[in-house]
């Protein structure tokens, strides 16, 4: 795969991972779903999924560049991804509902 595709995938994956980590938290789950907290099982699952996805982002970075460069790209991608997720939660939290495909959209 060309490096550009790998890097775009890595950035996207980092955002995805950060979003799932956020959804594992009560406050942000409420912002996104409107309902009470996620069940402990779901919360744990989301956290695991989040960390696994961040790890996948690292693997994508490692595939694209030499290790020293890849670690830097990953570190910076995580920072930018976390800010992106925080801003989405501030202004358009509902957008993150697509990351919970097994939930039917709550009627409001």
């Amino acid at each position, binding site marked *: 795969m060309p490096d550009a595709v790998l890097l775009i995938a890595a950035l996207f994956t980092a955002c995805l991972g*950060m979003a799932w980590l956020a959804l594992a938290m009560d406050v*942000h789950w409420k912002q996104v779903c409107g309902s009470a907290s996620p069940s402990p099982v779901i919360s744990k699952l989301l956290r695991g999924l989040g960390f696994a996805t961040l790890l996948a982002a690292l693997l994508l970075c490692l595939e694209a560049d030499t290790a020293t460069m890849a670690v830097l790209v990953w570190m910076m991608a995580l920072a930018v991804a976390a*800010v992106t997720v925080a801003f989405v939660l*501030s202004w358009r939290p509902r957008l993150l509902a697509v990351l919970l495909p097994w939930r039917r959209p709550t009627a409001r």
Partner: protein
Amino acid sequence: MFPNFRLSMTWLHTWFGLLLGFVLMVAFFFGSLSVFDREIDRWAIPATRIEARPMPSFDTTLAPIFRTITDPDPDELAAAKTRVSQPLPDKLAVMTWSAFTTHRDPVLRMFVEFKVPNSPLPDDHIHGSITIDPRDGKQLPENRLAIGSEFFYPMHFSLHLNWADIGYWIVGFAALAMLAALVSGVVMHRKIFREFFTFRPNKKIQRSTLDLHNLSGVVALPFHFLWALSGLIIFAGLYFPVLGTMMRPLAAAQEKLEATQTGLDLEPSGTPGTLASVDGMVAEAKAMWVERGVPGEVGFLIVHHVGSSNAYVSVYRDNTDRVGGGPGLHFQGSTGKLIHEDPPEGAVSTVNSFLIGMHLQRFKHWTLRWLIFAGGILSSVCIVTGLVFFVEKRKRQHSEQRRSGARWADALAVTTVTGMVVATLAILVANRLLPEELAQRDLWEKSTFWAAWALCLVHAIWRSSAVLKARTSPAWAEQCWAIVVLAIGAVLLNAVTTGDHLFKTLSEGYWPVAGTDLMMLACAALAAIAARRLQRRATAAARAVDQDSELREVRHA
């Protein structure tokens, strides 16, 4: 002094943050711009808007030009005259010739080191340098200021205060304070993980500012830490000069021993010699890189002991594919034979060159470059919100107690945040407006920068009286509007004076100029949004105060 550890950390964070926050703001803002210094140079010197190209031939292009550089920089020469015991000769002896380029440079910087005789300092030398267009070897006019690499970049580590290196020391102290602020910030912050993603823009200003301060501080914590640290490491020799002072005899003995092992003499032999084909040495170096599976171009080339029989030439790869540096290849000047190759780096040296390489970003990786720029902006956001929070937290109390501390902090914050952006845009506008043939054009550009900044300070102090009444200073919004006008003005002036408007640069894919223009437009848009929000908030607050006083009047009636 303090009842507990957390409070003592809070004290440290608050006061060192306030005192050095202004310096850090300059370091991180201009540091962020320096990530794209070469691109800003292209914007500022339209004659150099050409594709980047590799190092030209030494034998046919560079060598004749080096021979014409016979005079050192006048400022450096004047400084050197003050530190020698005897008058300097008319022509100083040449020590080295060197040329440096990166994958982003269409022009080539060439340097000559001149020996300063009878100086108390070891290896005392001063520099002469010129910039050439590598296509025809012609020198660029001297009065063209490379605003990115010669003004913004040195600003971020020296503040352009060169007397006794005072600027370097201030920035170094600020970087040290930043490391302390990061540690104390983590200690103070009770909910690092619980509020990792928390930003509540619609709460009170004090709350949302603190949210943004914590968010930008925590998510980019490794960036803040590593960049402040690597910045200090780059100037470690200046801040901690033991090798030139206390341990000079030991260091000199080590240098001598290394010279005997490597065959690279420390001093010129004293007998004149000729230089073999440097192009041949470069070809051999390139062949060696290909053999090792790392083909590449020359990034740095230096001739030591110019004109001497023991001259040697060091060739370094441009290392576009890695963070740290690579080993240098050293050739005998008279024969062109390889005499020494730097051994692989040890552990400490590897970490050192990784940290320095990460800070200097010579690599070719545009994603990482942009991510690092984003990191610099996050640092800036963290510092700004820290300053704003300081004011927000105190202004009501100070207003009631009739104290002016918050007012002065706010005026300085306005100057270092919006004022600095105004000054940055002002120098770019001046760059497009000043006549091309103006004598000392570069000096005029720099003066515009400082004048604009000083004006912003005066404006900020004048308007900050609002803070005395616990309101937001209107200077914030007003300087935001100045940013909008100047940013759009700079983009338009570039289009008018050079013809390189955005439609052209974008369709041709000439990113250095297109990117600079687009960033200025983005900056204008953000400033406009900020100004509108600030003014809407101010009107709402004023209305609330009016209603409040009306109610009081009704009650009194």
